């Protein structure tokens, strides 16, 4: 065992011991007046959620392990993701910039995490073509993450010199001030391609419609279902829900990431099966099966 591994074990143990001691100390403390102290270590009402999560996790990890062994995995064509390359190509031909809008949520939203992953891949592609990549950001916490993702993208493409830190811009945490500023960037700097990938709300159409009026090629993607119709009508390509999360695997083609897609697909197949069985049983008046899925 080398020094690095020993340090890691010590670090994990220290954090774990701190957490355990905090729990034990809290156990000793008197509960606040009027509240009941709960000594249970597992909420049996949530057993069904636990089992479902365990199945989904196992399926994903199993497929990842298979992929690591070199088993080839098929993944369907996702037009929206192919269009990103096309959009970057068009921007290069026109000698214009690419605008990447990572949604309006913070890093605690998994869509923003997915968006940062795509940003890293997009930056890698853009770095090869030597065109500006502008990333306007609403949440200050996302700024350093976006900077790192873009920097790494440029580094991977062998163009660290082309990375421009000032193009990762914090705008405002106010939703419509942000929308107004991004619309301003679209109208003034006229990017050839707008990529809107992440979590969007009421500003989605304001951004997409302004982008459409500038003639930019637009690729959007979100898991916020109520904003999808706006993107569908105003953008050239739209990534719907899970396609946004599939992007990192699709773009990088890394086997271990592709494996996770297969795991999700297996889980989806199981859910479809459960829905079919549940529908049939409910129709004939058998209730116990659906009750298995009730979350307390």
């Amino acid at each position, binding site marked *: 065992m080398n020094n690095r591994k020993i340090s890691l074990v010590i670090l994990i143990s220290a954090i774990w011991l701190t957490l355990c001691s905090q729990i034990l100390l809290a156990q000793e403390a008197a509960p606040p007046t009027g509240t009941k102290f709960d000594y249970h270590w597992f909420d049996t009402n949530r057993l069904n959620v636990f089992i479902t999560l365990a199945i989904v996790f196992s399926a994903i990890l199993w497929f990842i392990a298979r992929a690591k062994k070199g088993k080839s995995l098929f993944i369907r064509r996702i037009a929206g993701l192919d269009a990103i390359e096309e959009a970057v190509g068009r921007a290069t031909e026109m000698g214009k910039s690419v605008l990447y809008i990572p949604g*309006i*949520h913070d890093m*605690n939203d998994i869509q923003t995490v997915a968006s940062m992953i795509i940003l890293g891949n997009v930056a890698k592609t853009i770095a090869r073509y030597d065109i500006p990549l502008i990333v306007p950001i609403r949440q200050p916490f996302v700024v350093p993450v976006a900077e790192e993702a873009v920097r790494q993208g440029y580094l991977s493409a062998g163009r660290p010199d082309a990375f421009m830190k000032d193009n990762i811009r914090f705008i405002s945490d*106010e*939703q419509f001030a942000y929308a107004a500023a991004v619309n301003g960037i679209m109208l003034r700097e006229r990017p050839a391609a707008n990529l809107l990938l992440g979590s969007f709300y009421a500003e989605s159409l304001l951004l997409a419609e302004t982008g459409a009026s500038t003639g930019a090629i637009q690729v959007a993607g979100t898991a*916020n279902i*109520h904003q999808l119709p706006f993107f569908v009508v105003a953008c050239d390509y739209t990534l719907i829900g899970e396609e946004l999360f599939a992007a990192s695997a699709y773009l990088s083609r890394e086997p271990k990431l592709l494996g996770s897609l297969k795991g999700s697909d297996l889980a989806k197949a199981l859910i479809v099966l459960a829905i079919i069985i549940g529908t049939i049983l409910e129709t004939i008046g058998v209730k116990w099966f659906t009750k298995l899925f009730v979350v307390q």
Partner: protein
Amino acid sequence: MQKFFEFINQLDRRIIFIFVALAIILPLLFPLNIKFTVTEPVRGFYEAIDKVPNGSKVLFACDFEPGSLPELYPMTYAALEQMLKKDLKIIALSLWPAGPPLVEKALTDMAQNEFKRKYGVDYVNLGFKEGREVVMVSMGSSIPNTFPQDYRGTKVSQIPIMQGVNNFKDVKLIVNISAGYPGTKEWVQQVQARYNIGLVSGCTAVSAPEYYPYYQSKQLLGLLGGMKGAAEYEILVNRIGLGRRGMDAQSMAHVIIFLFILLGNLAYFSLKKKGT
């Protein structure tokens, strides 16, 4: 005719904007008073508040900012009217930074001026706390620890209405008015699902479809979608507010959009037939 369809096909969007503006402004100036009935989700919202015993404490989470004011203020005022008529004790807060002044204004207008209720005794504005859903989870452990002082800077321990309020178990219902994130979805996922407490939501029309599954699964006891929801709710509360007055304008705007879609398609088919 060919020229007209070509004109429609290439229509400058600013012409559409003018028609939409007229369709909104004219009915506001000259009301048509179109009649409408109340839908089930709105009735659910009304009944959930109605079932809360008089004098109980409710949490009023106003998660919006000035941007969505025209759409959400009518339902905020109507909800305050129903709660105050029942003498419910209102604990208001906002998880949107620009929300508290708007909540304060609504509370002053309704609770203080119209219903002559006393601040701190009958209602309180806890203000804003950064942290979004983390704040919700934290309130599940302790509301006074999460909001140690109210919007006016008074310590929560010194506010009469907050006596005996420790966490969600001490309020009878959560009334959420939501413009997006953090909002209804987070209240359902982080609070309703964890603490099994009654929750009703009023939201912007655009986000209402997203919350329908929660209403169907009874995780939301009622749902007001946009100005139409507010207008229906105003009928139940017996209040003539901005929601009801805005319905004519909304009707006309929808008709105008429909007519433009129709015209656009007529032009498309006509030009396609002629091979243009």
